[in-house]
């Protein structure tokens, strides 16, 4: 079990349900390893700043993680974690390997809109 404070997706059904119930979803599929931990930590911190985005993780090594592993957008990936961004159930962006806060927020801003306090300031 991943020891993050994020919502854990434990099965293919839960993954489907999450996409049906949320317009904007970011799923980090990995292990508790050196490249994945920094991404989990950024996601945990961004949860309050992006309330319009659902942040979740999934164990890379469980059979049901094929819903991520087998995505066409991930077919050339060879570095953990696989991170997939969904809008209305469709993949809008996927990344492989470690990403920092700046890289992640840039994708969130581009596809899901700016974080809550930046929107309020405008």
């Amino acid at each position: 079990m991943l020891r993050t404070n994020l919502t854990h997706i434990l099965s293919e059904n839960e993954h489907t349900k999450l996409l049906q119930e949320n317009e904007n979803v970011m799923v980090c599929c990995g292990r508790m390893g050196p490249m994945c931990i920094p991404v989990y930590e950024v996601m945990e911190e961004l949860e309050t700043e992006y309330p319009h985005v659902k942040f979740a993780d999934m164990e890379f090594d469980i059979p049901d993680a094929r819903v991520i592993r087998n995505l066409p957008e991930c077919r050339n990936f060879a570095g953990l974690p696989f991170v997939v961004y969904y809008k209305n159930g469709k993949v809008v962006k996927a990344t492989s390997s470690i990403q920092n806060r700046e890289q992640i927020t840039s994708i969130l801003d581009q596809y899901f809109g700016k974080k809550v306090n930046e929107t309020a300031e405008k």
Partner: protein
Amino acid sequence: MNHYDAIIIGAGAAGLTTGIYLSRAKVKTLILNEGAVGGQMVLTHEIANYPGIESISGYELARNMKQQALKFGCSIKSNIKITSIDLNSTPKSFVVNDKNIYSADVVIIATGGRPRALGVPGEDEFKGKGISYCATCDGDFFQDKEIIVVGGGNSALEEAVSLTKYASKVTIVHQFDHFQAFEHYVTEAKNNPKINFIMESKIIEFIGDEKLSSVKIQNQRTGDVSEKNVDGVFIFIGYVPNTEMFEGILELNQYKEIIVDKNLATNIPGVFAAGDSIAKRYRQVTTAVGDGTIAALSAAEYLNKFEKAELVADEADS
């Protein structure tokens, strides 16, 4: 402005140790950290030479250190961006994310280092699509595939051997005609039938379409360039110190490491440095912890003197 007695820049082993010591001594302490808490520690799957602990993951050790620092009252702000610094003023100040200002009487720099990149065309493009910096994370993506390991130090040779569990063939590409690794790592690599060597050579370009498919290798002695088909490249060529923001402010050596004295004081009074960002020979979690301890004790001593100096000034004013 948010004022602290001490601000530590960096939350790796050195920064967290400094935070633990200072907070426990009731020094109001803040750690500002641009990445994830734990630094290079988190990049290590198993630490088996930390005294008193037989074996622990880097993540676990970092989490324990963070909890210990927080328990003593240390504040930690991670994943922030320091956009401006003033170390010569009194107090010393930092602007974070272009808006929040933090100040402190004493500063400890523990910004650590990051894996060195080759810096050649294609490297960014194929990161996670054939190029990796972590064998334990990504080794199993290269089952029965042919890979290259770049580097000639302990990490490169140790990881090359561990990658033979997955890969059909591992070629070590190293820029010199000899290795910098300990002899037993060299012997183990040379005795492994899956490992080949291309010495005195450098990768000068990564080539592929949607994923890495080949590399261009240049012989450093002859200048000849050849292309080699490969599925993956693992890069282990050491670390660079995260000291860019201190260039022109602190005294750095030719490797951009911060120059410190035996008390880990820098050239600016009230600014100390510890861990992988300083000029030193051995870079281990244990040496970072030792540095953090020395920096904390030196900083505490400086604060005591600072307070006394303030008292004298106050008396003179009255």
